[in-house]
């Protein structure tokens, strides 16, 4: 089976006025199915740009990117949108839930764009809320939930289309220690029990400690790639 992510000599540069900024300078990485990898590095190291390219929110300027075996570096905006909706799941630091909208409807959102029939959407969304342990909050609006609960809704939302990869961008950045641990336990459980591939972007070693593999970025290049020996539990 093809690796979930396979990038070779991946480059991304921006024009910033007169200057050119080289955010990625030739990154090579392969992510196998079922991996749980943490991407670390200081700000400006290129880890966020890397996540955007892997998440098909951005396009590389050079290099190849094969997602689940298919070359995706030159797809149109619509084709990338379709893959994002059907094969990728996103979890953001700020949860990014729709305000004044129930948890259930928030979880349904990706399926609306993927064209899943309404009745099916409800069933699946409820099942995913059950999976992250907050099925009882299905009717609650984001402002009626704690940060940890909101992030669980966001994780449920990332799961609904059975994605090949979940991208979590600083998922605990806005949470207290206890909630952070809960969220990381949840991601770990999803990875181990459900075999979901997770790529976590963080600059916190405590959080990265939950991953099985840690990749470190610096100045647009991967400077470290190791198996996490002392994994947190």
């Amino acid at each position, binding site marked *: 089976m093809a690796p979930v992510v396979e990038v070779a000599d991946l480059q991304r540069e921006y024009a910033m006025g007169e200057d050119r900024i080289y955010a990625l300078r030739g990154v090579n990485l392969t992510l196998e199915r079922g991996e749980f990898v943490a991407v670390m590095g200081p700000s400006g190291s290129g880890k966020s740009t890397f996540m*955007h390219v892997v*998440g098909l*929110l*951005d396009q590389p300027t050079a290099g190849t990117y094969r997602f689940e075996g298919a070359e995706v570096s030159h797809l149109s*905006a*619509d084709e990338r*949108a*379709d893959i*994002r*909706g*059907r094969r990728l799941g*996103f979890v*953001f630091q*700020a949860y*990014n839930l*729709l*305000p*004044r*909208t129930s948890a259930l*409807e928030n979880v349904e*959102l*990706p399926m*609306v*764009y*993927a*064209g899943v029939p309404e009745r099916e959407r409800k069933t699946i969304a409820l099942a995913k809320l059950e999976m992250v342990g907050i099925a009882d909050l299905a009717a609650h609006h984001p402002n009626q939930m704690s940060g940890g609960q909101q992030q669980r809704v966001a994780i449920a*939302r990332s799961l609904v*289309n059975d994605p090949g990869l979940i991208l979590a961008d600083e998922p605990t950045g806005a949470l207290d220690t206890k909630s952070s641990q809960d969220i990381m336990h949840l991601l770990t459980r999803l990875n181990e029990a459900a075999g979901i591939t997770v790529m976590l972007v963080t600059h916190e070693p405590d959080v990265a400690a939950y991953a099985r593999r840690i990749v470190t970025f610096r100045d647009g290049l991967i400077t470290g790639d190791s198996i996490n020996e002392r994994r947190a539990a």
Partner: protein
Amino acid sequence: MNIKATLRLALAALIRNKTRSLLTMLGIVIGVAAVIITVAIGVGARTSVQASINSLGSNLIVVQPGSVTQSGARTGFGAASTLTPADGLEIAKLPGVAAVSPTVSLRTQVVAGENNWQTTITGVAPTYTFIRSWGLSAGRFFNQNDVTSDAKVAVLGQTVAGQLFPGGTSPIGQTVIIKGAPFTVIGALDPLGQSGLGQDQDDVVLIPYTSAMERLTGLTTVNTLMVSAATAAQIDGVTQSVTSLLEERHRIVPPQTDDFQVRNLQAIAQTASQTGAILELLLAGVAAVSLVVGGIGIMNIMLVSVTERTREIGLRMAVGARAGSIMRQFLAESIVLATIGGLIGVAAGGVGALGLALLTHWPTAVPLQWVLASVAFSALVGIFFGYYPARQAAALSPIEALRFE
């Protein structure tokens, strides 16, 4: 995404911001309500003018005696009494004339047994019912023989019949006394109701004009000559030829002024209705401007909404929304907003028109095509003013949008 899903999304977004949505709609609501009320009054007025003209008869031309004096000089014999039945007979021979009837009217008391009633006695020709498009509810109308023999026969209007013969007694065959002379009732007219001027048109007794002149007025002249043109297109031509004929018969040469007046009501009606229509269009135009202003309000709020919901747009893109879906969603929001505003406006305008009708007793009518046009125009306003904000939303890059603070 299909249309239903897009509309559902748009509706959900609008409901999330109820107050703002309602306030945004307000411009459209007021605009459409103004259009509907304006049109309702205009159309109502025109309809009632048209109806009162039509109730006077089809293709009607009325010849009346003219003014008696002109700059102090007498221009005719008698007090505006220049028209004779003979004039009528000659007019009837003109091409394009379908029927002519003289009318001789006076108000007097009519007696039947123990009941009496003051009403208008009008002497007319048998063609009168045709000219006025007036049918009979019972009995018969008088014929040429009755006219030739000054027959003492009468046909009663509904009001008179009801007053003289209460309790549903049939008046046919009964005798009524008019100025001491007994007349036999031979028929009763269909009810016509009030005229445009609020006159009870059924408060009348029709008798042969010869009988009226002979037995009631004692004059050789008549009050008016009612002429019916064969078709509406011939009204102007007949008006011309009647004028020429009467000038010749009355030996009027310039610079003398005519001692009669030929008026065709259709022309008056047309002028009235054209004036009404222009005014109506003008007011509707002003109201339409307020619709456009309402549209600008929608654009303004939609632009604010796009900025405010930048992160939401970024998220939607991240979870699989194509630029086109975002575009359609925002466009749908403004269309739904404008259309609902239009519908509320139609309802408000309808209620307003009804209220106005009840308060002022002006007739009002809301034609369906104006309702449809207002709602369609509202939707167009929504599309037009929603397009730019929707394009702004769709053009956002997902990364920038997600990062937006």
